[in-house]
């Protein structure tokens, strides 16, 4: 047995690749799926932009209805989970199975915490009277509408666009957490990923980073603008 170390490109792994794009089937399939996801989220964001700027009045100012500090923490959490995911990928690309498990578990925990905090945020918003259909009569936010702090005319649009965009994103995060948990228990823990074949980690990682990327855009346009 000989021991040698060679330095290779991270993007040229040792498994079979599709000619032309130099990517294996799973990765190519995920990129095509992500291209369709770009169009999906563009439709949601585009609709939001059109509804907001064509609305018959002012939009609620940032921070009046939504809890920005909590969501900023959630954004940071998702960014951290994206880093832990890429560290999991780097670990197995270098053949380190132990660190793959550690980083992948941290990613799952980060994703689960993101969804939990989003569920808490939704619960809190509904309690305050912010619904997909607008503001509930007699609620705390209804009082803000009555005294002119919040605009009456656009609260319905605000509620529906907010819950649809963040809800679909939350659904994507949930799917990612389920997929990573499945891979963690059925593959990573059993040592099925090796330096010679870590395609599953690379593929689910692409999905996870895309979910993070979408949230970066959503956080700005929904919470800060």
């Amino acid at each position, binding site marked *: 047995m000989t021991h040698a*170390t060679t330095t290779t490109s991270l993007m040229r792994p040792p498994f079979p690749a599709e000619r032309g794009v130099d990517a294996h089937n799973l990765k190519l399939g995920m990129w095509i799926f992500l291209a369709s996801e770009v169009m999906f989220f563009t439709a949601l964001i585009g609709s939001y932009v*059109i509804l907001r700027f064509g609305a018959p009045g002012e939009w609620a100012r940032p921070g009046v209805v939504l809890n920005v500090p909590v969501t900023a923490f959630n954004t940071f959490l998702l*960014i951290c989970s994206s880093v832990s995911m890429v560290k999991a990928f780097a670990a197995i690309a270098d053949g380190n199975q132990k660190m793959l498990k550690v980083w992948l578990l941290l990613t799952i925990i980060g994703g689960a915490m993101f969804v939990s905090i989003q569920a808490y945020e939704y619960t809190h918003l509904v309690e305050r009277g912010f619904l997909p259909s607008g503001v509930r009569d007699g609620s705390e936010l209804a009082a803000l509408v009555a005294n002119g702090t919040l605009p009456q005319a656009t609260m319905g649009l605000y509620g529906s666009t907010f819950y649809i965009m963040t809800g679909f994103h939350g659904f994507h995060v949930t799917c990612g957490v389920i997929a990573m948990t499945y891979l963690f228990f059925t593959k990573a823990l059993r040592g099925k990923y090796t*330096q010679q074949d870590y395609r599953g980690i690379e593929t689910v990682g692409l999905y996870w980073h895309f979910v993070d990327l979408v949230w970066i855009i959503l956080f*700005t346009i929904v919470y800060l603008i």
Partner: protein
Amino acid sequence: METVQHKHPPYLLIWVYLALLTAAELALAFELPIDRNLKLVLLLGLAVWKALLVAMFFMHLKFERWNLRILFIIPLPLAAIFIFAAISQKFW
């Protein structure tokens, strides 16, 4: 047995950039008393910057072949056309 050593991008440095840019976004949105339209442009610019960092370094687009990059890039102009066309209805 041969071990393969990869060169990795500076992931933790990118993480620091992303955290700093997020903090800058929050400061810009709530602390700086600047013109609303300028704020809008700057916030969108910061968001695109962060998204590009994720796509280039975490999704490794920077290191992929152009054939694969195009897969991700093609929907973007289509998306821009869609939004522009819909917004321009206001001026028809």
